[in-house]
């Protein structure tokens, strides 16, 4: 009983820690030990696994948002700068 309680507490601690470090994991901003910690938990937690996978897809898609064609605004800026003289 006590062992199960302790295991549950440990699981929840790892769950919270992992959830808070998923971005760092995807940004490759963790030490090898910390990466392993994330991977260990994700391997047994379907919830964190789903969040990690979908977060990765979200980031890939956010990068795509910058691909819109943009008008050149430099000419307007330069015109105003020259008007400052």
């Amino acid at each position, binding site marked *: 009983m006590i062992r199960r309680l302790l295991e549950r507490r440990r699981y929840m601690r790892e769950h919270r820690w992992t959830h808070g470090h998923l*971005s760092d994991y995807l940004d490759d901003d963790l030490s090898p030990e910390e990466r392993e910690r994330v991977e260990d938990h994700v391997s047994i937690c379907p*919830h964190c696994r789903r969040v990690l*996978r*979908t977060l990765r897809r*979200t980031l890939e898609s956010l990068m795509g*948002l*910058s691909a819109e064609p943009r008008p050149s605004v430099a000419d307007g800026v*330069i015109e105003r*700068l020259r008007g*400052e003289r």
Partner: protein
Amino acid sequence: MSAPVGTCDERELVERSQAGDRLAFEELVRRHADRLYAVVLRFVADAGEAEEITQEAFLRAWRSIDRFELRSRFFTWLYRIGINEAKRRAERRPSPGTVGSIEDSPIEEAPDWSDAPEFRAEQGQLRGVLEDAVRALPLEYRAPLILRDVEGLSTQEAAEVMELGEAAFKSRLHRARLAVRRAVDHYYLEAER
């Protein structure tokens, strides 16, 4: 005789601008105006206002270029000026995206859409979901996400623009990412119903 401005690196252009060389500063404008405009556009209501803020940011940068310290990159300083002005204006127009809390916890019953073949940002509807989710973020969360994930600045550069320590910046970025991810959860959950 000075080298043509088109062949100068950013540091040289800044130094020449600080010495009063307007052509050098105009070259900085050509190199950074479109990107600054794209960032600013995500904070304000329309293209005209974004262009106005972009112009204003460069004018301020020109007037105070002698105070710029070459320890940091020119564009991080420029972005800070532009974003602060955009935030000032956005805060004058309260909207759901300018104040309030952030909802970032996953929706438990949502499906795992990571392998969904239609999940491509260029696809109209999902692109719209992402755009709306980003725009709904409070400004203090929207800026880190735009700078880091949409515009591709490094964490260090983006934190510098925001004048935040790296830990505080990363915390906001993570919450913003989770909130946008959650919006896609919501989209797929609705699609299933």
